[in-house]
């Protein structure tokens, strides 16, 4: 059985490399519903969870004040064992869910990126660990930077 499986994997990787299976390589399709949700609870439901728990094992590192809402640097990480995915939710954005990251085995659950914030509000780092959702939250003030030109 092992033999067949390894042969199969090699076949798949060859086909992927040859670009014959582009859709398969993108097993995921974009979670339209989650990205259209308007509240933290709705997003969590649409990501397949419910009643996320606050946990200090989830760390959201970001500035308290962002000079410009167009680029807010965030680092989100999880110390929870077996973290499968991490997501960024911005409470008062037109759409609450900003991004989700699947963390395969061997990849560290620690991601840095930059997001847009519509106005001062709470930002949530959401981590999924063996089927349950945990979060950390922090208010980030978005100020009218510059000379208000």
């Amino acid at each position: 059985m092992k033999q067949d499986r390894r042969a199969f994997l090699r076949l798949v990787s060859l086909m992927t490399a040859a670009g014959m299976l582009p859709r398969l390589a993108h097993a995921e399709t974009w979670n339209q519903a989650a990205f259209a949700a308007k509240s933290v609870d709705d997003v969590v439901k649409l990501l397949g969870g419910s009643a996320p728990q606050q946990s200090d094992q989830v760390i959201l590192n970001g500035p308290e004040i962002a000079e410009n809402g167009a680029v807010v640097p965030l680092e989100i990480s999880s110390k929870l064992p077996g973290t499968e995915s991490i997501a960024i939710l911005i409470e008062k954005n037109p759409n609450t869910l900003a991004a989700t990251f699947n963390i395969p085995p061997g990849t560290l659950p620690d991601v840095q990126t930059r997001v847009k914030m519509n106005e001062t509000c709470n930002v949530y780092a959401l981590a999924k660990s063996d089927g349950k959702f945990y979060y950390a939250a922090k208010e980030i003030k978005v100020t009218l930077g510059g000379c208000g030109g």
Partner: protein
Amino acid sequence: MHCVNSKLVCTLLLIGWFGSAMAGEDATVDAERLQDALRRSFSGATPEEWKTRVEQDRNQTLCSRYRNAPPPDIAAAISAEALSSVRYPESNKLLGDWKKGEQLAMISGGGQVSRIVPDPAGTRRGGNCFACHALSVKEVAAGNLGPVLTGFGKARGTSTETVRYTYEKIYNAQAYFACSFMPRFGHNGWLTPDQIADLVAFLLDPQSPVNR
């Protein structure tokens, strides 16, 4: 009234003329060369834009020449002329509506000229006071180019002198500080007397967040 005014005006001209000779024409570049460079650089400006945004009035000429630090005699003449040019609201009500004042203090855009980033239609002009002054405590993003005005009304009360002084200071800051960096909001017609009265209220009214 006229005689005082005209006397003021001629002393100003005399001093201005004398002043510039003493301090030496703008030692850096002569006026002719500067005008030439301006005409070529702003050749895209409409006649109206050239007149209201490039051409200088006497105050701007003097403050530029003296790098905003005019000698005492010229400074006194500038302030005297500024104070005498203040216009008050028809209603003579110098303490307006602080809520409208707060709005005006927040508005930073308006009155800009740009082909690359044109002002959206209907952009309102405002005082943009938060750019330079701390006012209400809750507004974190406040500048410090001008003094902190938090608690201004609490510290001063609302006597007629204070209300009048605050109105005149916003209308033409140079009435009390020659070549102040603060724009002459009223004198230049950027804000109307009634709008300035609303800003006075924003600064002095006990209900205003400036004094809470």
